[in-house]
């Protein structure tokens, strides 16, 4: 039964991705979608250039892949953060990492167009998570509520800084920043896809190999130490790499919250908390979830609603549900 669920989660991004490719303002036959993609990869059918082909290959495919990569990055780092902070209520958005990355991007777009946007996003995301960490850390241990509160504080701080940038920047750039901040994949192309893919690969691959360590690191610090783990060093490695994935994702599509909170929970409920399985399946489920959210955001109306709105609309009630369900335990020590 568990295996069946795992297989379903593994293949979910492929199925949902395929559906996402034929849905949209311009309807494409589902089989034609497969044909076009197979042709693009293997050059078997010798299809002539057509509007359908252009829509699938140049517009929808990069968008679906980008959504998948960003979804995997955000939910993968959600697993990491929940594990190392022993706190099921955190994700990159709640801990202020997304806000830090957003500030890095905003100042780059606004004032330093020649600097690397990803590098700045990474630097400020790291700064944000370091601030959250040290504000929350009292007497060695990090408790649940202080961690969330300090995330809120740091998030508010960086969002205020972003507002300053918006206030000072020239109107043309302002529009770009505002649109991008709402979180959307509508600007996806093969170039952004390469950047996001590289960031996700560098950020998530080391975490993938360290995933079983998350079981050990999710115990108390004393206990993990007694099991031979260099807690500080391993936490640092995991935070740095997952922050890199989040920062790159934010730099290509803006702030998309809640997905890093929801997906790990849903996967944990389905196949259990063992990180050896939880981490890879959260990557695929995160990809599927994000593609689904993006497909809804672009098909539900004639407009392209920013996908961040869709994830927040589902994420906020989910957070409340977790709190109510967990009761006292959720707020815990």
């Amino acid at each position, binding site marked *: 039964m568990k295996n069946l669920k795992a297989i379903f989660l593994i293949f979910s991004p492929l199925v949902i991705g395929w559906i996402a490719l034929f849905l949209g303002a311009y309807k494409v036959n589902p089989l034609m979608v497969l044909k076009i993609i197979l042709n693009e990869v293997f050059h078997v059918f010798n299809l002539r250039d057509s509007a359908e082909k252009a829509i699938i290959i140049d517009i929808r495919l990069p968008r679906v892949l980008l959504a998948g990569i960003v979804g995997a990055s955000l939910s993968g780092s959600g697993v990491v953060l929940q594990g190392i902070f022993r706190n099921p209520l955190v994700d990159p958005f709640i801990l202020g990492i997304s806000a830090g990355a957003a500030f890095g991007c905003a100042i780059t777009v606004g004032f330093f167009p020649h600097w690397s946007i990803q590098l700045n996003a990474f630097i400020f995301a790291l700064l944000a998570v370091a601030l959250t960490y040290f504000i929350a850390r009292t007497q060695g241990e990090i408790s649940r509520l202080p961690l969330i509160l300090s995330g809120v504080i740091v998030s508010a701080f960086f969002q205020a800084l972003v507002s300053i940038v918006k206030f000072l920047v020239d109107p043309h750039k302002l529009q770009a920043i505002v649109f991008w901040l709402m979180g959307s994949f509508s600007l996806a192309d093969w170039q952004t896809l390469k950047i996001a893919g590289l960031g996700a690969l560098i950020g998530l691959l*080391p975490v993938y190999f360290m995933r079983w360590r998350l*079981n050990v690191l999710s115990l108390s610090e004393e*206990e993990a130490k*007694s099991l031979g783990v260099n807690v500080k060093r391993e936490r640092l490695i995991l935070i740095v790499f997952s922050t890199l994935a989040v920062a790159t994702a934010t730099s290509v599509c803006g702030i998309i919250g809640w997905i890093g909170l929801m997906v790990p929970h849903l996967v944990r409920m389905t196949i*259990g*908390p063992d990180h050896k399985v939880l981490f890879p399946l959260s990557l695929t489920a995160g990809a599927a979830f994000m593609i689904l959210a993006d497909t809804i955001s672009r098909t539900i109306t004639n407009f392209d609603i920013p996908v961040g709105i869709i994830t927040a609309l589902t994420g906020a009630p989910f957070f409340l549900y977790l709190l109510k369900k967990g009761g006292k335990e959720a707020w815990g020590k």
Partner: protein
Amino acid sequence: MLEIKELWFKHKGQKEDILKNVSFTTEKRRLTVILGPNGSGKSTLFKCITGIWKPYKGSILADGKEINKLSHLERAKIFAVVPQEHEPAFPYSVFDIVLIGRAPYVGLFSSPNSKDYKKAEQALQILGIYHLRDKPYNKISGGEKQLVLLARALAQEAPFMLLDEPTSNLDFKNQIKVLSKIKKLAYEKGLTALVTLHDPNLASLFADKIILIKNGKIVAEGKPEKILNEKLIEKIYGVKVRIVQNNGFRLIFPILETSCINKPLEAQK
């Protein structure tokens, strides 16, 4: 063999020593109990031995190796520590918890291999809890949790097993069950077991050797029947007791004021 030599400890910024010149040794295949009332310094002593706190003077030798010079990883291959309170943040299965005991042998960028899985399964079998394998750890009873943690310590394959108050949250039956298991494991697996306890009766029943501690000083050490006498227990715990023998076992029970016994409280006046 574990050798504790002239250990002194105090918290940073405080004047008073919590451990004062503590020295003792423990032996292989034996269960050694650090016994003392609450606040006697036994938990501090335990934390110094497991390396969570650093004593400012003295040394701890495990089979001749100075423990405080080892890394966490090297130490984890020598000491298996069973924590007192244990509530994981996520509902891991019993098997996941036991497998974590293999952490010292799993590289930073890898996962447990088939040998590690086998060791974890063996540990479950040795403790007779293989049927709990797939149960969520947070849904089993306190006694079962202790057995799971013992299995984890066993999977860790360390020659020393250190347990801080393993019975403090257990009922009568499980206290006996857990301590019997520890003693049996020590004997059969050739481990050195060191346990802190506050109950003199449990210590007297199970210990091969007792280290009696009060106010950070060792008051007596040796076999239970040699060192535990009525006078000493009254001195350490501040309770008058009588020791009776039955079938070669010694039972310590408190002498209550006669007015307390078998009478409702309101009838006492």
